[in-house]
């Protein structure tokens, strides 16, 4: 019985007249007049997804356009196209810095522009800082020292608060027109009030008072690991909650039905006003984490946690949750992680939350030299990096006075929003792949901006490296569009073949007087016709026609070939054509019943048509050091 020739027998099959291989078996074609081989690219299909609800527009003749004109959905979207996405994804992006993406409710057309810078307005030497705003006066403590500003944080002065010498300020609470101060030296403490006129009065000195909070019109004060109600005068009630030894309370917030108090034991305690007395009514445990701060806004509770690691690293997390009541117990339900910060060697914990009408802010130390406010935008539930302080420290306090943000960076200073713009900011869009895992030909890109002036520019950088999103300075970012004036919209021709395209938009304002306003970008791609259908007439006669040799009959060879091919129907195979050089991995769709043709008298050709559908693979023309399995080659290569 004749054998099928395999690659093991023929080192150079093309020279011996074999026209293609299926897996490792070599075959001869029966290509001739009337029985041509066809290689047909399959049309790009719509994948059955209704992409027209997204900004992407799909047509068969112009390819696909990946565009974005709204980024108010916030950051942290790592893939523009995924099957389990939601409609908000079309307004989301991956990362940004120094650009404001949340301005959809300002009564003006949406755009992205640079944020204002911040400046240090008061130096702080201690890591123990507190801030309280009484009316428009801002108080900031620094160890034993208390500073105040009456002009929205522009100028600061030291306040003579009358605290006992050596007492470190542990808490500030604005309660009506008074500022309550708790201070201690570790073994003794006091509570003082400070009037707007600067008159200080010692209210209590019976215990080592720690933090003080003004919530729901009442004051609560922590003494060691216990929390007490305080009437604001001379009476501290009995302990409402007592924590395990060594644990402390960190923050408190009025959540409407109850007061929520956070503690380092990983719990959020719910205190309900029962006939004028705050009573513990349940708690929520965030296991494995210490709750550091809490705030309520528009019925949603936000809280930050930290997870201690060995060394100086602290993982920070921001959650949102809903307050629910069950059996007269108030607990947080539907806890959802908004974002986690996890940078090695850095205390990434959020330590303060601040809420405005539409947003919730927290502050994160991101490196040894930079700290950022992060903004959670309530209308879209998106989060993005916000104001930047050029100092690395935990942000323990955030406030807004006179439409300007202020926040403290521990052991560094009080930072205040200025009126000038950042010189540069960027926004990295999510990698796009048009729902397909195949390479595309990216052919065109453009951006739209509002009319540029004052040397402002908007640049579009592209990378085809998915991981480029992790580093705004990645070496693969290539500047493709640079709008120096006008409104952009001029398309730039691209020549990129890749699965992903990642866009980074950089806004620049050299004079920082005003900001360029970025509106939209788009990248157009054509699908690579990689899915091909190849139909090959295969010689299944007994007649072997080797080049430069007379035809030779090998009895039953045709039947052997035909049966071998028939057994491959429906199987995954690798088809390699030698001329033209093509490698296709796919499926044998069918092998037709044998056909006989008799083009020349006395010469009968029996053939069958093999149909393989699959995707094109890289072919090797010359062997290089890169052509090894796992580098450029998938698995099998041929040394010609």
């Amino acid at each position: 019985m004749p054998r099928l020739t395999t690659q093991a027998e023929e080192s150079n099959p093309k020279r011996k007249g074999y026209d293609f291989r299926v897996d490792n078996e070599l075959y001869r074609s029966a290509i001739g007049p009337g029985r041509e081989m066809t290689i047909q690219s399959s049309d790009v299909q719509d994948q059955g997804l209704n992409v027209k609800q997204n900004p992407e527009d799909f047509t068969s003749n112009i390819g696909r356009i990946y565009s974005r004109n709204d980024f108010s959905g916030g950051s942290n979207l790592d893939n523009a196209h995924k099957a389990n996405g939601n409609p908000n994804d079309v307004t989301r992006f991956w990362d940004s810095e120094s650009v404001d993406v949340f301005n959809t409710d300002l009564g003006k057309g949406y755009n992205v522009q640079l944020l204002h810078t911040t400046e240090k307005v008061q130096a702080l030497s201690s890591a123990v800082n507190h801030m309280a705003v009484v009316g428009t006066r801002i108080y900031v403590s620094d160890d034993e020292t208390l500073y105040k500003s009456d002009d929205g944080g522009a100028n600061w002065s030291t306040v003579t608060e009358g605290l006992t010498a050596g007492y470190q300020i542990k808490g500030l609470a604005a309660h009506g027109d008074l500022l309550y101060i708790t201070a201690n030296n570790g073994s003794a403490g006091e509570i003082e009030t400070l009037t707007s006129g600067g008159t200080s009065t010692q209210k209590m000195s019976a215990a080592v008072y720690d933090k003080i909070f003004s919530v729901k019109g009442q004051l609560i004060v922590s003494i060691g690991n216990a929390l007490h109600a305080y009437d604001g005068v001379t009476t501290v009630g009995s302990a409402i909650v007592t924590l395990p030894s060594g644990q402390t309370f960190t923050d408190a917030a009025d959540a409407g039905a109850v007061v929520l108090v956070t503690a380092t034991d990983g719990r959020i305690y719910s205190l309900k006003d029962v006939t004028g007395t705050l009573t513990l009514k349940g708690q929520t445990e965030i296991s494995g984490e210490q709750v550091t701060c809490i705030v309520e806004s528009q019925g949603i509770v936000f809280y930050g946690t930290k997870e201690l690691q060995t060394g100086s690293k602290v993982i920070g997390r921001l959650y949102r949750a809903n307050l629910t009541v069950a059996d007269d117990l108030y607990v947080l339900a539907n806890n959802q992680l908004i974002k986690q910060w996890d940078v090695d060697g850095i205390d990434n914990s959020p330590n303060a939350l601040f809420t405005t009408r539409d947003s919730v802010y927290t502050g994160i130390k991101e490196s040894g030299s930079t700290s950022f406010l992060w903004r959670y935008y309530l209308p879209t539930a998106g989060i993005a990096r916000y104001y930047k302080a050029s100092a690395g420290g935990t942000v323990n306090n955030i406030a807004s006075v006179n439409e300007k943000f202020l926040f403290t960076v521990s052991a560094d200073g009080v930072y205040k929003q200025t009126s000038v713009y950042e010189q540069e900011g960027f926004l990295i869009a999510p990698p796009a792949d048009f729902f397909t895992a195949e390479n595309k030909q990216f052919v065109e890109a453009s951006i739209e901006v509002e009319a540029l002036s004052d040397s402002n520019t908007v640049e579009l950088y592209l990378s085809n490296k998915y991981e480029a999103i992790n580093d705004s300075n990645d070496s693969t970012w290539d500047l493709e569009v640079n709008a120096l004036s006008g409104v952009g919209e001029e398309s730039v021709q691209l020549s990129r073949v890749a699965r992903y395209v990642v866009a980074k938009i950089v806004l620049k304002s050299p004079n920082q007087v005003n900001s360029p306003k970025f509106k939209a970008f788009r990248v157009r791609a054509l699908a690579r016709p990689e899915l091909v259908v190849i139909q090959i007439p295969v010689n299944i006669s007994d007649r072997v026609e080797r080049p430069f040799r007379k035809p030779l009959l090998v009895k039953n060879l045709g039947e052997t070939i035909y049966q071998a091919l028939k057994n491959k129907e429906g199987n995954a195979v690798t088809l390699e054509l030698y001329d033209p050089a093509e490698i296709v991995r796919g499926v044998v769709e069918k092998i037709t019943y044998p056909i006989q043709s008799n083009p020349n008298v006395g010469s009968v050709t029996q053939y069958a048509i093999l149909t393989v559908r699959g995707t094109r693979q890289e072919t090797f023309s010359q062997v290089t050091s890169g052509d090894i399995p796992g580098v450029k080659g998938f698995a099998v290569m041929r040394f010609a």
Partner: protein
Amino acid sequence: MSTNIQGLVDRVYREYLEPMDDLTSYTVLNEGTELSASDTVITFDGNLLTQEEEDAMDAGTIIECERELMRCVSLDTVNNQVTVVRGVRGTIASTHPDGSVVKISPTFPRKNVFDAVCDQIKNLYPTLFATETLEVVVGDGFTLLGSYSAPGTNNYLVAPIKSISQYTDFSANSDTTNVVFRGVAVELIDLPNPFTYTDDTSTERTITYTTGPNVVHALQFSGIAAGHTAFVTFKKKFIDPTSETDTLATVGLEDEYEPIIMAGVAAQMLSGRDIPTATTDYITDQLSTSNFPVDSATRIRNSLLSYQRALIQQARKDLRARYPEPVTINNIVY
């Protein structure tokens, strides 16, 4: 130009039957030593074959080594060996040097081509003929050509074309001054084969030819004394080749007869054959370069034969120019 029959056979393959891009599948003997005439296991070089070509050497297939045909009995693809029956289809088992070409199912076996060459040479006569000039010492009566011990190929002689003599004793290195050659009347006599005679020592001898025409030849001179030397030129049939090592000169072929033989062999071999397109094209090209294109209505074989006729005609003119027909009266050539 060829010097022997082997060269002529190779030319036929090269120029007509097997162009370089249309060879019969072949390999070579890889015995490491000469293949004896009795060895039935042949080791071949597998690198020259595809797997299908190897498989084609399965039982029943005829392979060829030189002019011997062998029938395959079994195939060992692991050791590249095939077991054969030697010397089939009228060929003779013989030794073959290591490295000899082994063809698989040859379309044009070398044995056939050799036989066709022989046929074509034989068939050239009487259109064309060989010539031979003999130096004969005129006897008292008839002069027998050849001897009992060395009959030669005198039975292939057909007729004297001319005969000359000095009418004196001729000796080598003699002075040629005043020596004149003149025509001699001579008649070729056909004697029975074998022919018995008594030689000058009164011993009875028999001259016998076992190959070629069944005749013994003698000459009868007129008008010349016995003992004189005459030079007689004969029209002669071509000698049948018996081996590829036979030279063309031995056979009696002129150089210009080679194309005639080749065209004739090609026509003979292609007659009735399903020849591949490649070979058809090749022969057509060959004929075109010989100013004898194959027209659309003419089969290649006919064209080859027409081409051969044209060549023969040319050769005949040359022969007539060199050897005009002699004056013959009563079979005596003057």
